[in-house]
């Protein structure tokens, strides 16, 4: 089998998967009575037409990058963390609590403290699932999903009770939201007049650091080893249980930080549905990037584009913005299927035989 055939085969599989994702999305769009390719055109081009669009894509990419980095640490360590959504929410709650409790602190102290509080909140929430798995062998997929629900309810309670803006109670409509954070806890906007904030820089720096962590440090070696084959790792003296807890703490911390960055860079107060599904979209981004930190920023940009584009189609073509989740779902299915097909050596042999038969070449390899 020639290298050229292999490359062509892999490309064909990937293209077929992409085509399938497009087709599925198109069918759903057609079913709700809109012209699918017009919608795709709007989603993929409209946001790129001006600075506003591009900055808004980057605003959405920032939490996606942070979440996806955490997800790739967890997945590479053999822990399937589906709980980023809950970890984001707890991160927001913790960051808000710290920021509004110390309004008098100067910015160089309060801002880092706020972000760290967010990371710590997410780490605690992820750590619960990690500890349960390490100590009691509780399936982390179940526990993280359940913890998402608990986090959502807890957050709703906090915003309606202890953390609600007192003014909402006295003169407002009772909207469940916190007070505005003190200015010292705000991330600066990078371009005046847009929402693009310094969180993007934090996310990009962390992408480099996660790459270094996983492939250049002993801690990363340990995490990857424990994730790839826990049995061999145990024989090699690696404490696998500890690695599971560490991976979930780190993964949760990234999600919590994503929440804190979103809070202090964009909304500047805790409101309901602040995370808008970044915890799940972040998983898609991480998988799309092949769990490779270097590819996560571009992947996050692509999904930021989809999210914004879907918002725009809602406005301009009255297609529900939630359509973007259909797209995401189709993309996940396409990635997973393409991976399964590419892992199947016999399928490739079969394709090669078919190729040989179609072109009726006895020995396609010898020129």
């Amino acid at each position, binding site marked *: 089998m020639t290298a050229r055939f292999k490359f062509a085969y892999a490309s064909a599989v990937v293209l077929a998967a992409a085509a399938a994702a497009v087709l599925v999305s198109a069918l759903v769009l057609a079913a709700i009575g809109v012209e699918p390719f017009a919608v795709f055109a709007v989603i993929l081009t409209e946001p790129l037409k001006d600075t506003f669009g591009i900055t808004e894509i980057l605003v959405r990419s920032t939490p996606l990058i942070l979440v996806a980095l955490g997800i790739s640490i967890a997945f590479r360590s053999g822990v399937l963390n589906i709980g980023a959504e809950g970890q984001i929410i707890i991160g927001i709650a913790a960051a808000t609590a710290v920021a509004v409790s110390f309004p008098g602190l100067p910015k160089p102290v309060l801002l880092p403290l706020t972000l760290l509080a967010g990371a710590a909140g997410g780490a605690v929430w992820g750590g619960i699932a990690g500890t349960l798995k390490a100590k009691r062998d509780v399936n982390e997929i179940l526990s993280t999903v359940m913890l998402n629900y608990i986090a959502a309810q807890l957050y709703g309670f906090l915003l309606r009770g202890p953390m609600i803006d007192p003014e909402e109670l006295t003169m407002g409509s009772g909207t469940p939201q916190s007070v505005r954070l003190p200015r010292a806890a705000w991330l600066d906007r990078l371009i005046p007049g847009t929402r693009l904030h310094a969180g993007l820089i934090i996310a990009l720096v962390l992408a480099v650091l996660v790459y270094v962590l996983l492939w250049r440090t002993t801690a990363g*070696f340990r995490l990857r080893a424990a994730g790839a084959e826990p049995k061999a790792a145990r024989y090699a003296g690696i*404490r696998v249980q500890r690695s599971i807890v560490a991976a979930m703490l780190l993964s949760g911390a990234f999600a919590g930080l994503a929440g804190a960055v979103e809070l202090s860079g964009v909304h500047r107060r805790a409101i309901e549905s602040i995370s808008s599904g970044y915890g799940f979209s972040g998983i898609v981004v991480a998988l799309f990037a092949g769990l490779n930190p270097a590819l996560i920023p571009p992947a996050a940009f692509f999904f930021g584009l989809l999210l914004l584009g879907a918002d725009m189609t809602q406005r301009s073509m009255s297609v529900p913005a939630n359509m973007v989740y259909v797209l995401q779902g189709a993309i996940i299915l396409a990635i997973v299927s393409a991976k399964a097909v590419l892992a199947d050596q016999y399928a490739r*042999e079969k394709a090669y035989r078919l190729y040989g038969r179609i072109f009726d070449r006895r020995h396609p390899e010898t020129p």
Partner: protein
Amino acid sequence: MPKPMANTAEPIRELRLEGVTKRFPGVLACDDISMEVAAGEILALVGENGAGKTTLMNILMGLYQPDGGRILVNGREVRFRDPNDAFALGIGMVHQRFMLVPSMTVAENVALGSKDLHKFLRLDLAEARRRISEVSEHYGLSVQADAYVDQLSVGEQQRAELVKTLCFGARFLILDEPTSALTPQETDELIELLKRMAGEVSVIFISHKLNEVKALSHKVVVLRRGRVVFRGETADHSPADIAALMTGHEVVLPRNDCEDDCGKVLLSLRDLTVRSDRGHAALEKLSLEVRSGEILGLAGVSGNGQRELADTLAGLRKAEGGSVLLAGVELLGKSPREIIDAGFGYIPEDRHNEGIIPSFTVRENLALKDFAEPRFSAASFLKWKEIEKNAAELIERYDIRLSSSQVAAGSLSGGNIQKVILARELARKPKVLVAVYPTRGLDMGASEFIHTRLLELRRAGKGVLLISEELDELMNLSDRIAVIYKGSIVKILESGEATLSRLGVLMAGVEEVQA
């Protein structure tokens, strides 16, 4: 002859391969291979792991397409595009790993593979049973048609697989290392069975166990690195001749005959008591000593506590009582890391999932126990250059065959994986090495290599605990042989006292009567 059932093709009177060649990236797996098998003949195809035997048979079954050469049946050229084409001509293969659905009965398995028995929404099991009984009567191959496959022993499963293949109409059988999973008794039965079947079916028998080849085959073809290096009548050649052809040099199992005085006690187990996963006693007050410059063999039927003993020594299983001293240091209660650092080397039973991390590169696996040492890291950062240098050195020194130190270790052959593990463990200069079934499933060349290294370790004054089922291996290498039965040592024999029959009796748990 039984009437052909699923198969109406004319019988294969002669199958001939001419110049078959198959290339994989960087490897010439089959290089211009020619051979022929006549009706009713048994041809043994022998060669070390990686010599190209399985690739060649996959070509014959239509799983791979050859890059060159041709296949002739009864003088006519045929092309097998997939296994169905091979089936249609009556060629069937029994794989090393049986292709049976474990949760189904034998009859269901047969019906599943026979397209003509697929009726609307059901399988014609009555017809499947009839075919099974016809085949088993004809060949004297007893098998229970209604037994569930996962309830059968390995030997019975293999008979079921054979019956299935015959029911599909195969009269030309390819058996890929059929005895590798069988007990000695089952192996003898299989050989008797195949002898009876010879004459009616043709067989290509892949093996690297030369006594079986000798007992069974009419002709033998030896492959080495993808080439036919020898073909001839089996009767004219001794197993030693064939072994030499296989490896390219005279094979002498290294014998342990140096008279080093066994020194001080390096590893001492006292009254070790351990429970198994199910909670019953796996080791009961087991006591054992390994001295420096000694290989202590541990013989026993597997399942008598060997696995639990090895796990306990590696620190992965808690002991209920007793003590384990390594050069005077208590190991019980220590973490695996502390045990490794105390000078404990280990070749685990499951080389694929315990010895290496299959998805990691070879160089990562070679540094698996030391990546945090100053040699390979500074201030928590890995020194990839040093890791690579170490890998290059070990690959060279231990003759590990691969295209690059950055291929996934799991993609290597069993022998090369074992070399990776051995290289890593020996490079750490352990005081004591525990080797669990170190040569299981390996060919003679790789086994010999591993034996040599174990003997070198002994000569260097280290202690080796060799846990094995291969009595030849134990008797050739060990200074003393301890026999384990139901979690206790029943007897320790000096190498001179150990005989096959004496060990066999002890392993079966029969008390020796004191003379």
